[in-house]
C-alpha cells in the first residue's frame, strides 16, 4: 500500500512533508510530478526531504508518496560505458526523453531493461550458495567479464539455474526456499558492501605520470587527495589517472564541476586506447556526471552512487580506481543542505558531521578479499578545491587526516606552466615503504636509491635558492651551481610532463627509470669533470644535455637515450680533465 502525505513547505531543494511517517533516508516522490527525494530529517510528524530535482513551482499541499526504500543503485551488466547523473539516471535516456536540457520529473532506470545479456552459469542445481557466491558470467565488454553474484544478504541451495540470453530483470536462478535472483541487484548507496577480509596494499597504481609513480606513488587500494586552487591541474591529473592507470575499471565522478569537462571525457575516451588492453578506454569506464548547475542534492548523492558501483566491481575481483572531482563540491552540497535544515554549523559553516562523512567515504577504499573469495581493490583519489587555494580550510584538513597520499598542487608552478604543478617539497606518499619491494622487483633494484637521491637534491635546491635570492647564483661555489643545474634538469626533464603531448602523456615505468638514471649519470659525470678542472660553463652547455631534455617526447626512447648518452660520454671526454 502506498502511503500518501502532503507537502507542507518548499524552500529550494529542501521540502518539508507531513503525513507519511518515513524512515530516515527513505526515498519519496514529491509533488504532482513525483520529483525524487530522500528523507534527511524527521521531526514529529514532519519529515524533511532533500529533492534531487528543481523545485520551482512546487506548492504546499501537493501529494507525497513514500517508497519505503532507501536511495539505491542498480548493479548488474550494463554499467560500463554508461554516463549517469548523481542518482544513476542515464544521461542518454534523459536526453531521449526530454532533449538537450534536463527538465524535471523524469525517471529513468539505472540499468537498461531491454538489453539481453548472454548468461553462462557456473553453478548447478543443488549447489549451496551464499551472499557473494558467483552464479555465472556475462561478457559485459570485450575485457570485462561480469560475475553475477548472489546479493550479500541471500543464501540457500540452487533449485534452478538458467543459461542463455536474459535482460537484467529476468530470473536466472531460483533457490530452494523460492528466492528468485536476477542479474540485477540493488544496494543502498550510503552503506558499504560487505567483504570477507580487508588486506594491506602491496602494489602501486601505475599511472605513467612520472611525478606520481616516481616520487609520490599511491598503492592499489590506497587513498590520495589532490588539493589545489583553481586552474592548478586537479582535473587534468584526475583525467590522466583515469586514462592511464593500470586498473581494470575506472569510476569517474564529476561532482559539481563543469559540463564541458564531462563532454570532453565522453568525446575522448571512446577514441583512446587502454594501454593495458589496447581496447577503447570507455569500455572500462563508468561516468557519473552531476555538474555544478545540476541539482545540489543529487550532487551530494553522486559520490555515494559512484563508490557503490566501484565496490560492486571490486567484489568481482577487479582493481577499480575512483576519481572524485571535486570532493569540495560534495562537501559544499552537504553544507548547503545542512544550512537549509538550520542545523548548527561547524567550522566555516560546514556541518559538524563533515569529517565523519569524509572518513566513511575514504574508508570504502582498500584491498579486500570479497565474499566470493576474489581479491579486488578500490583506489580512491579525491580532488579538493580549497577556497583561495588555502589548504588550512576544513575540507582539505579533514581529508588530509584520512588519506595516505597528498599531491599538493601549487598555483605558482601552474603559472609558470610547470605541469603537473605538484609541489615536490610539500607532497608526500605514505606508501613508499610498503611498495619498495614491488619497485625493487619490477622497476630496478636501485630505484629507491635513485629516487631518494633526486628528492634529496631537490631539497638542497630549495635551500640553495634562498641563498641565490640574496647573492645571485654566480656567487655560489661551482659545485653548488652544478647542483642547481642538475635540479633544474630533474624538474624540467623529469618532473614536468605534458598531458597533451601524444608521447609524453604516458611514460612507462621503464622509461621513467631510464630517464632518471640518465640524469643521475649526467650529474655524476659532471661532478667528476668539475673536480678534474673542467669549466662549469662548458659542463652545463653540452649539446647532449639539451638533447636529454627532449627524450621524453620520443616514443622510441631507448634509441634516443642511447645516442644521447653516447654523445654525452664523448662530450665529457673532450672536456678534458682526467
Amino acid at each position, binding site marked *: 500500500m502506498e502511503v500518501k502525505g502532503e507537502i*507542507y*513547505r*518548499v*524552500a*529550494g531543494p529542501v521540502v518539508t512533508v507531513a503525513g507519511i511517517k518515513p524512515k530516515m533516508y527513505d526515498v519519496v516522490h514529491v509533488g504532482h510530478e513525483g520529483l525524487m527525494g530522500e528523507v534527511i530529517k524527521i521531526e514529529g510528524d514532519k519529515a524533511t526531504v532533500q529533492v534531487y530535482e*528543481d*523545485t*520551482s*513551482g*512546487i*506548492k*504546499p*499541499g501537493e501529494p507525497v508518496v513514500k517508497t519505503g526504500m532507501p536511495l539505491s543503485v542498480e548493479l548488474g551488466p550494463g554499467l560500463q560505458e554508461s*554516463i549517469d547523473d548523481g542518482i544513476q539516471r542515464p*544521461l*542518454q535516456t*534523459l*536526453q531521449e526523453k526530454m*532533449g*538537450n*536540457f*534536463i527538465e524535471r520529473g523524469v525517471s529513468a532506470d539505472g540499468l537498461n531493461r531491454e538489453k539481453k545479456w548472454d548468461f553462462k552459469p557456473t553453478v548447478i542445481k543443488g549447489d549451496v550458495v551464499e551472499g557473494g557466491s558467483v552464479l555465472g558470467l556475462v561478457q559485459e565488454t570485450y575485457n570485462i567479464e561480469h560475475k553475477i553474484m548472489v546479493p550479500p544478504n541471500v543464501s540457500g541451495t540452487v533449485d534452478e539455474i538458467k543459461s542463455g540470453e536474459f535482460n537484467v530483470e529476468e530470473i536466472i536462478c531460483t533457490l530452494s526456499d523460492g528466492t528468485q535472483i536476477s542479474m540485477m541487484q540493488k544496494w543502498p548507496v550510503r552503506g558499504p558492501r560487505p567483504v570477507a577480509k580487508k588486506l594491506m596494499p602491496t602494489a602501486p597504481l601505475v599511472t605513467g605520470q612520472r611525478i606520481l609513480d616516481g616520487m609520490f606513488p599511491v598503492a592499489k587500494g590506497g587513498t590520495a587527495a589532490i588539493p589545489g*586552487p*583553481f*586552474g592548478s591541474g586537479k582535473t587534468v591529473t584526475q583525467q590522466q589517472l583515469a586514462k592511464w592507470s593500470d586498473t581494470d575499471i575506472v569510476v569517474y565522478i564529476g561532482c*559539481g564541476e563543469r*559540463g*564541458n569537462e564531462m*563532454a*570532453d571525457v*565522453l568525446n575522448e575516451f571512446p577514441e583512446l586506447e587502454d594501454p593495458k588492453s589496447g581496447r577503447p578506454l570507455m569500455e572500462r569506464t563508468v561516468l557519473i*556526471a552531476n*555538474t*555544478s*548547475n545540476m541539482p*545540489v542534492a543529487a550532487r551530494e548523492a553522486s559520490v555515494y552512487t559512484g563508490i557503490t558501483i566501484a565496490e560492486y566491481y571490486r567484489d568481482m575481483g577487479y582493481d577499480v580506481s575512483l576519481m572524485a572531482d571535486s570532493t569540495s*563540491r560534495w562537501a*559544499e552540497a552537504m*553544507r*548547503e543542505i545542512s*544550512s537549509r535544515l538550520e542545523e548548527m554549523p561547524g567550522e566555516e*559553516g560546514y556541518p559538524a558531521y563533515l569529517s565523519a562523512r569524509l572518513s566513511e567515504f575514504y574508508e570504502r577504499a582498500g584491498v579486500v578479499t570479497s565474499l566470493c573469495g576474489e581479491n579486488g581493490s578500490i583506489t580512491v583519489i579525491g580532488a579538493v578545491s580549497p*577556497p583561495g*587555494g*588555502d589548504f588550512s580550510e576544513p575540507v582539505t584538513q579533514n581529508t588530509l587526516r584520512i588519506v595516505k597520499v597528498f599531491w599538493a598542487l601549487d598555483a605558482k608552478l601552474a603559472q*609558470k*606552466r610547470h605541469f603537473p604543478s605538484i609541489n615536490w617539497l610539500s607532497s608526500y606518499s605514505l606508501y613508499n615503504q610498503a611498495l619498495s619491494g614491488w619497485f625493487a622487483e619490477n622497476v630496478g633494484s636501485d630505484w629507491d636509491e635513485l629516487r631518494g637521491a633526486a628528492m634529496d637534491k631537490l631539497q638542497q635546491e630549495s635551500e640553495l635558492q634562498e641563498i641565490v*635570492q640574496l*647573492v*645571485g*647564483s*654566480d*656567487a655560489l661555489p661551482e659545485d653548488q651551481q652544478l647542483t642547481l643545474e642538475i635540479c633544474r634538469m630533474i624538474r624540467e626533464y623529469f618532473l614536468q610532463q*605534458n598531458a*597533451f603531448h601524444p608521447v609524453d602523456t604516458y611514460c612507462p615505468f621503464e622509461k621513467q627509470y631510464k630517464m632518471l638514471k640518465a640524469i643521475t649519470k649526467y650529474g655524476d659525470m659532471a661532478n667528476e669533470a668539475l673536480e678534474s678542472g673542467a669549466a662549469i*660553463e662548458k659542463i652545463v*652547455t653540452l*649539446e647532449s644535455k639539451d638533447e636529454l*631534455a*627532449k627524450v621524453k617526447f620520443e616514443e622510441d626512447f631507448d634509441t634516443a637515450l642511447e645516442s644521447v648518452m653516447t654523445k654525452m660520454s664523448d662530450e665529457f671526454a673532450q672536456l678534458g680533465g682526467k
Partner: protein
Amino acid sequence: MTKEYKTIVDVAGPLIFIEKTEPVGYGELVHINMPDGTSKRGQVLDTSADMVVVQVFEGTGGLNSEAGVVFSGETIKLSASKDMLGRILSGAGEPLDGGPQIVPDKRVDVNGAAMNPYSRMPPEDFIQTGISTIDGTNTLVRGQKLPIFSGAGLPHNEIALQIARQAKVPGSDEEFAVVFAAMGITNEEAQSFMADFEKTGALERAVVFLNLADDPAVERIITPRMALTAAEYLAYEHDMHVLVILTDITNYCEALRQMGAAREEVPGRRGYPGYMYTDLASLYERAGVIKGLKGSVTQFSILTMPGDDITHPIPDLSGYITEGQIVVSRELHRKGIYPPINVLPSLSRLMNSGIGEGKTREDHKAVSDQMYAGYAEGRDLRGLVAIVGKESLSGRDRHILEFADLFEDRFVRQGKDENRTIEDTLRISWEILSDLPESQLTRIDNKYIDKYHPAHQQKAE
C-alpha cells in the same frame, strides 16, 4: 489566480512575509500593488502552508501591510523573440528604449534548465579576438566561458569592447549576436558601451539589459538570467553564435550577499552565501555548444576583484567554475601597457582544443609554452636583479631577463584598434623568441624550430 492578498505581516530588507494564502509555488513571480497605485515585482523564496516569503526586486521602499500581493502562478519568464535584437531592456526585461513591448515568440523560464552534459559538444572553434595575449597564449573558443578578472579603474571595458568588435571565427561568416547585461555599473560606463555599440553598428545585433548602479540591487539577481535566457534562445532557436558580456559579476555577488543577509542565512566566507558557488555556476554553466545545433553561447564576463585580490570569494569561486580567466594587471597598466593583460595568472582551459594544426598552427602550443616559461622566469629574475644587480646573473639568465621585457613590449602591448591575425601573433612570438639562444628553447620540438625560427627561415631563403 488573480486573487489579491492584503496579508503582509512583515517587511524586512528586500523581503516580505505574507500569511493566509492559498498554496503558492516555490519560485513563483509575484506582483505587488503599492498603496500609491504603482507596482513592484518579486519572487517566492520560501512557501509553506503558514507563510510565504517573497523577495521584492525593486526593493521594499514604500511598502507596508496595505500593499496587495498577487501570485502569478508561474515562474519568471522572458518574452523571447528575434525582435529583441537592437533593443534596450531593463534589468528585469522591460523596454527602456521607448520601443514597444516585445511580442513573445516564446515565453521562457529565466532560470534555465541545466544542459545535459551528454548533449554538449566540446567547444573547439578558435575565436580570433585580434589580441595577442588572448589568441596567442590564452585562446578563446566558441562555447567557452572566459571572464576578465580586473580591478577598479583598469581598462577592462575597453578590452571587452575591443573583443566584441574584433572577435570572429576566421573563415566563417555565420550569424552572430551580442547579449550585453549591465549589473550595477554606472550610467557613464553603460553609455560608453552603448556609444561603442552604436558606432560600430553592433547594436543592431545586440540585446541590451541594463540594471544600473542606482537601480534596485535585487533586480540584479534576475538580470543575468534574463540575458542568458535571451542568449540561449537566439543560439538554439535561431542558430546564432552569441557572445554574452555580463558586467559586473562583482555587483551581482554583492546583491546575493545582501539577499542572504536579509534572509538571516548563515553566511559563508567573508559574508557571502554558502551557496554562491552553486548560484554562480547556474549562470556560468549556461555557455556551450550543443551537438547537432548550429548556434553557441560564449561568455566573456567582467569581474572586478575587490582589492585586486584574486583569492577573494568572488573571483575565487568564479575561477573554479569558468574555463579560465584573463587577468588584467595594475602593474602593467601603470607601465603604460595596453592591454595590460598579465598572462601568467591568466588561463584558457579550452585552448588546447582550439589550437594546432588545421585550427591555428601546428607550433602554436609549443610557442605559447615556451613564452610562458621564459616570461615567468624573466619576471622572477627581475626580483632578483633588484637585489643583486644584473652583473651577478649568468648569461642564460640575462637572456631571459631581456626576453621578459621584449614580451611585454612587443607581444603584450598593442593598439586599441590593432586587430592582429593569429599569423601576426605567432610571427611576433617567433621574433621575440629568436632573441633567446636556440638551446634555451627546450619546449619547442626541433622540427618547429627548423620550420618557423626566423634564423632558419633566413637560411632557407
